[in-house]
């Protein structure tokens, strides 16, 4: 379980997250929605320890991410996929995927690379396994990014606007993989702008507005009268649908 | 006082050496700027033969040790041309040539930093090549060149130390003399090093100040 209580985070004078309480249980797919600047990405960056939190507590399977000793355990349990892929430019797709298993989990190189190929095969990159990131399209890069996160067999997958740097065609190839993962029971925290897709795969929606969690509802409730009763949610949904 | 100890006079000796180093640095830099810029202008006008010659000489000077250049001028020229070359003359010739080669490179890229479109626009307005060079290119190129030039000058201060090898009484030569007399190498070379260090810092500081003033001139001041 990922448990977030009383999370506060500010950058200088700007408070980005202001008292967030959220729990994500094994098997859930939680989409985090909200307009840009609402603090969605920062939330993910707090969970994986890339940002130091100012107050509150975040634990991943009871490991406290603000304690350096426990952070590495917490990180082993969660995998992150980034908006801009952040692949290692000097390594092939296979090497990108196999690096952490080899170095962190001490999996023998041969085995790790075989598993990496398997993963790449499952996302349709069998042919591109030995290509370097610069030789791949955006959608292919992001698929490698997903494999890299999955290679650590994480309990939780953290997805930070993973399609916002992609054009529509590539977006759909990435989303279809995520849908498959969701169906397979992977726990996901999904920060996104893709409302319709979020609706189709999530069990729950968390809605952030100006650093506060103003809705945390089962998906069907969020998109029905319960959600619409919240003015900010209604406003957000109607605006997003218009675009 | 035992022979071999430091005397108060040694400080004057060191400062004298520093003076010689500085004088050679300043004079050869000025000569280098004139020659280097002239070479760059030759390239700008694409003067045939001369342009290739200049590029070749600059490459040769940039890619060979200053010490060897110094030996060629100080030992080689007198033997070859049967002329007399004093250590100071050899130092001035070598350091000027070496500075010129590096300043040439900076000047060329500074000229190139001024966009071709500007030069073409100026030509459309009927400016002559010389007018374009003076009114359009020179002011902008100077602003561009100050940064790299400062870096070069800090380096050239240090290059002057090599003339001690042919016997010019510069700061390093004074260090050699004091080193032999006092047999206190750590003290002597630390003092010498410190003086060079301060000089280099002074050049860096002056370059930054100059750049700031130049930029203030060219900066957009609003309506």
């Amino acid at each position, binding site marked *: 379980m990922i448990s977030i209580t009383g999370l506060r985070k500010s950058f200088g004078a700007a408070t980005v997250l202001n008292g967030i309480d959220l729990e994500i249980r094994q098997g859930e797919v939680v989409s985090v929605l909200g307009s840009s600047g609402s603090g969605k990405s920062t939330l993910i960056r707090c969970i994986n320890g*890339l940002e130091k939190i100012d107050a509150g507590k975040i634990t991943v399977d009871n490991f406290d991410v603000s304690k350096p000793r426990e952070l590495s355990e917490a990180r082993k349990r969660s995998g*992150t996929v980034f908006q801009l892929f952040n692949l290692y430019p000097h390594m092939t797709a296979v090497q990108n995927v196999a690096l952490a298993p080899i170095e962190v989990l001490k999996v023998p190189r041969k085995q790790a690379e075989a598993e990496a190929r398997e993963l790449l095969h499952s996302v349709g990159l069998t042919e591109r396994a030995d290509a*370097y990131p610069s030789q791949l399209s955006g959608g292919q890069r992001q698929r490698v990014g997903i494999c890299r996160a999955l290679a650590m067999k994480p309990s939780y997958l953290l997805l930070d606007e993973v399609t916002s740097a992609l054009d529509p065609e590539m977006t759909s190839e990435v989303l279809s993989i995520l849908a498959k993962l969701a169906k397979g029971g992977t726990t996901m925290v999904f920060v996104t702008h893709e409302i319709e897709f979020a609706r189709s795969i999530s069990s729950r929606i968390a809605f952030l507005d100006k650093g506060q969690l103003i809705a945390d509802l089962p998906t069907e409730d969020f998109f029905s009268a319960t959600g619409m009763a919240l003015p900010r949610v209604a406003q957000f949904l109607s605006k997003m649908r218009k675009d | 006082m035992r022979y071999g100890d430091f005397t108060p006079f040694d400080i004057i000796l060191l400062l004298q050496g520093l003076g010689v180093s500085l004088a050679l640095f300043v004079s050869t830099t000025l000569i280098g700027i004139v020659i280097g810029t002239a070479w760059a202008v030759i390239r700008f006008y694409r003067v045939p033969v001369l342009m290739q010659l200049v590029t070749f000489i600059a*490459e040769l000077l940039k890619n060979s*040790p200053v010490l060897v250049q110094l030996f060629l001028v100080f030992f080689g020229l007198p*033997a070859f041309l049967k002329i007399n070359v004093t250590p100071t003359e050899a130092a001035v010739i070598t350091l000027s040539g070496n500075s010129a080669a590096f300043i040439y490179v900076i000047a060329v890229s500074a000229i190139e930093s001024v966009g071709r479109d500007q030069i073409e626009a100026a030509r459309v307005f009927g400016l002559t090549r010389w007018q374009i060079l003076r009114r359009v290119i020179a002011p902008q190129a100077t602003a561009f060149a100050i940064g790299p030039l400062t870096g070069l000058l*800090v380096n050239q201060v240090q290059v002057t130390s090599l003339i001690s090898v042919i016997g010019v009484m510069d700061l390093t030569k004074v260090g050699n003399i004091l080193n032999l007399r006092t047999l206190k190498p750590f003290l002597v070379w*630390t003092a010498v090093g410190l003086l060079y260090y301060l000089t280099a810092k002074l050049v860096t500081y002056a370059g930054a100040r100059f750049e700031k003033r130049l930029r203030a001139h060219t900066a957009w001041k609003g309506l």
Partner: protein
Amino acid sequence: MKFDLSILAKHIPFLLEGAWLTLHACALAVVGSLVLGLVIGAMRTSASPLLNRLAAVYIDIFRNIPFIVQLFFFYFGLPEIGIYIDAFTTGVVALSIAGGAFTSDVIRSGILAIDPGVIEAAQVSGLRKITIFRKIILPIALRASVRPLGSVFINLILTSSILSTITLNELTGSAKIVASNTFRPFEVYFVLLVAYAALTYAVSILIGMLHRYLNRHQEEGAV
């Protein structure tokens, strides 16, 4: 006086011996400055203010004091504190220390140019700091730094001529001996100048090839 190179023919083996010593010293100094440059460069980019400051001081000192002064400091100074090493070792050590300052600057900008997102990806996948440095930061920074490192190493070759001032008969030192034996300093130093230029030119071609080889996958449309 006529320009006669044939007189040098019988001295070529001796000069080649000197050239070999130069290459030997430079090869060792390249390794030395790479190692030092990596350590100092890593310190310079580390989060610890103390390490950062120490590295900055190191770079500042050795970049702003002439190499010949540094060399004399070690050559005359070390025996003073009971360390007796030969001229060759002293030269290699001094070259490595000075080269390390320049190398670390290159490494530092190579590290700073890495997309922080790539490092974050490595952090969240649970890699240890040392692994991130070895497997991610270093390979990326080194690939990007091949050309500027090449310039540093070419400078190292040119600077190594100064080792002749501490009785080391490397290329320049041997040439000095030949010049005084043949009374043909002009020819000798002219050939020497061309030899250094050819040597550095060859090295720069090798560096270009290495750069293209190491970055062969980064060419096409990298983000």
